[in-house]
């Protein structure tokens, strides 16, 4: 019963929880304008009801930069990291394959295409996450059914179907790009690569809500997903509704990825490497995997975005790719043969 991974889980949880907190505070001090940490704390604390009065209230530029520019951006980064990682964990669980992720299966590209369509037709920003979700889910199920051979999911067919959808949707997005106004063009380019630049609070609220709903659904069916992993036949014998669990997992995973993507654009590799790395840390039990993935993913994306801001606006998706791909290779080499699925 007392698996060494279980102790590891608690320790990891504390370490990564703390890391997430520290990272979010530190990244608040990163930017082209230098604001001392002391001022940042005062700006934040003076806004908290009851105790706020004890701290010096800063007004003007510094307070605006922290509260209206850096804070929403960092929080959206955190939410995006959490959503993409939980989405990836869920997909990897459903397909029993560490290669599955919103990015690899074309779900991200689907969401991005949906949002591009929305931007092209001048839709209100509030509708962008919805249309992104519709396209992401359509892509998810197209890939899912394409990957189904004789009632079973064939993983190589699935990955190839994802690849094909990825190409198709990326091409369609480029097509829209080609026919759009130069002013709209920039915003479409920015999020074929992913960017947290220009985040506003309304985007934070919506993605926060979706993050909680989506993650809760994924977590609620985590135990069932664990059982399904040991074998679908035995899971059915244990009274688990295999297809329903899978559907709920995939819809939640699409929702989590799509809503974030409709605001930030395609940020690749987070949903791929974070669940994978977390699995190496705490094992394949989804009840442990999902919280750790969330914390690790949120921290990872906040760090990548800090680099993005320091670099003067390099797209965050480029940075996650630069960090993510070599890290993934390192994990592969280090654990070759040791941790099978």
């Amino acid at each position: 019963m007392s698996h060494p991974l279980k102790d590891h889980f608690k320790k990891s949880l504390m370490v990564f929880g703390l890391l997430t907190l520290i990272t979010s505070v530190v990244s608040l001090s990163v930017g082209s304008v230098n604001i001392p940490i002391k001022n940042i704390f005062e700006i934040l604390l003076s806004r908290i009801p009851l105790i706020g009065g004890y701290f010096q209230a800063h007004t003007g530029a510094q307070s605006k930069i922290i509260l209206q520019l850096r804070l929403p951006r960092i929080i959206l980064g955190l939410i995006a990291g959490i959503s993409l990682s939980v989405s990836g964990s869920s997909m990897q669980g459903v397909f029993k394959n560490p290669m599955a992720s919103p990015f690899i299966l074309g779900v991200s590209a689907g969401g991005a295409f949906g949002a591009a369509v929305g931007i092209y037709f001048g839709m209100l920003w509030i509708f962008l996450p919805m249309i992104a979700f519709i396209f992401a889910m359509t892509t998810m199920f197209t890939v899912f059914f394409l990957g189904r051979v004789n009632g079973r999911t064939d993983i190589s067919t699935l990955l190839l179907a994802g690849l094909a959808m990825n190409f198709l949707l990326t091409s369609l997005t480029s097509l829209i790009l080609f026919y759009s106004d130069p002013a709209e063009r920039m915003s479409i380019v920015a999020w074929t690569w992913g960017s947290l630049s220009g985040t506003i609070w309304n985007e934070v609220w919506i993605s926060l809500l979706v993050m909680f709903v989506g993650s809760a659904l994924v977590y609620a069916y985590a135990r069932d997903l664990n059982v399904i992993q040991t074998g679908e036949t035995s899971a059915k014998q244990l009274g688990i509704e295999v297809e329903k669990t899978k559907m709920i997992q995939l819809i939640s995973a699409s929702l989590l990825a799509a809503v974030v993507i409709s605001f930030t654009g395609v940020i690749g590799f987070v949903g791929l490497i974070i669940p994978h790395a977390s699995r190496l840390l705490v094992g394949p039990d989804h009840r442990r995997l999902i919280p750790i993935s969330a914390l690790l993913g949120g921290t990872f994306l906040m760090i990548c975005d800090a680099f993005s801001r320091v670099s003067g606006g390099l797209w965050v998706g480029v940075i996650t790719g630069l960090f993510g791909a070599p890290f993934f290779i390192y994990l592969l080499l280090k654990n070759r043969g040791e941790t099978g699925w």
Partner: protein
Amino acid sequence: MKNKNLFLAIGIAVALILVVGALIGPLSGTVQNDRSQDGEESYVVEDAAGEEIPFEEPPERIISFMPSNTEILFHLEVGDRVVGVDDFSNHPEEALDLPEVGDSFEVDYEKIIDLEPDVVVITEAVAHMREQLEEYDIKTVVTGGETLEDVYSDIELLGEVCGIDERGEQKAQELKDEMDDITEETRDLAKEDRVDVLYISGTFDGINAPGNGTFQNSLLTNAGAHNIASYKSGWSTIPEDEIIDRDPEVIIAPHHLEGDVKEYTEKDLWQDITAVENEEIHFVDDDVMSRPGPRVIEAQDSLVDIIQSSGSAESVSLRGGQTDIVEIWSRPLEKDSKGAV
């Protein structure tokens, strides 16, 4: 054990909510500026985007986003009010010492907020910045920055914004008069008396040229040219077969493209183009030719000079005279001697 896990999970969820909540808690409402309502000095300006922008007093801190806007502000003798410029503003020299706030590719909003501007002057091409800056309670004025008429109206507009309406009108009128002066003999030429000109503005993925509706098209037309790219509107890429078919008599390009243009004109494909045959390939100042600001006068001047002193223009004006024949016959000879080298 199972219950323990559940509690742990709930604990994590609560901790997560607290972390995010603590970050979000201090969310600010928009800071309202309660300026005294004198009503005496306040005025409203309608900008090029049709937006009515109220001013309580003439802005003392201006950020100019676009080199042409910077040049106009200094031309209006309010350069001392400019506290920040985009990365490309390099004229007049004083602009080089001002803080830079990014370019249209990546706007440094932190810097903009930090400079505490009363107004940010942008153009239609970067109109999306308006929405973002409104998020931070920063006023924007959009200038036209596209056509030759925009140059005059932008000067008047920025005069109004700065509370120097009369000076703005006067400066615009002066510029218009000067432009009329130097184009007096060329702007109304009949179609058959015009010189076919290709103006190459860039070599990104082919030959880029300013078509109908751009201020370069107006400058070329007023200088007695027929812009062969004017069959297209706005900025576009002109296919090489179109260029050969339309056979320009003069090719003009900015200095920084000298190498690229040479690569094209040395191609076999281009050897029958009249401008290449006659070596009528001219280079002009990059900045004055690309900025719809007060220096259009310099651009206009050099274009009139190049076009009217070209062989084609001379043969046109000497039509029917004896020298005309000499002109025409001397050309193949020149080419032969060149070919022999």
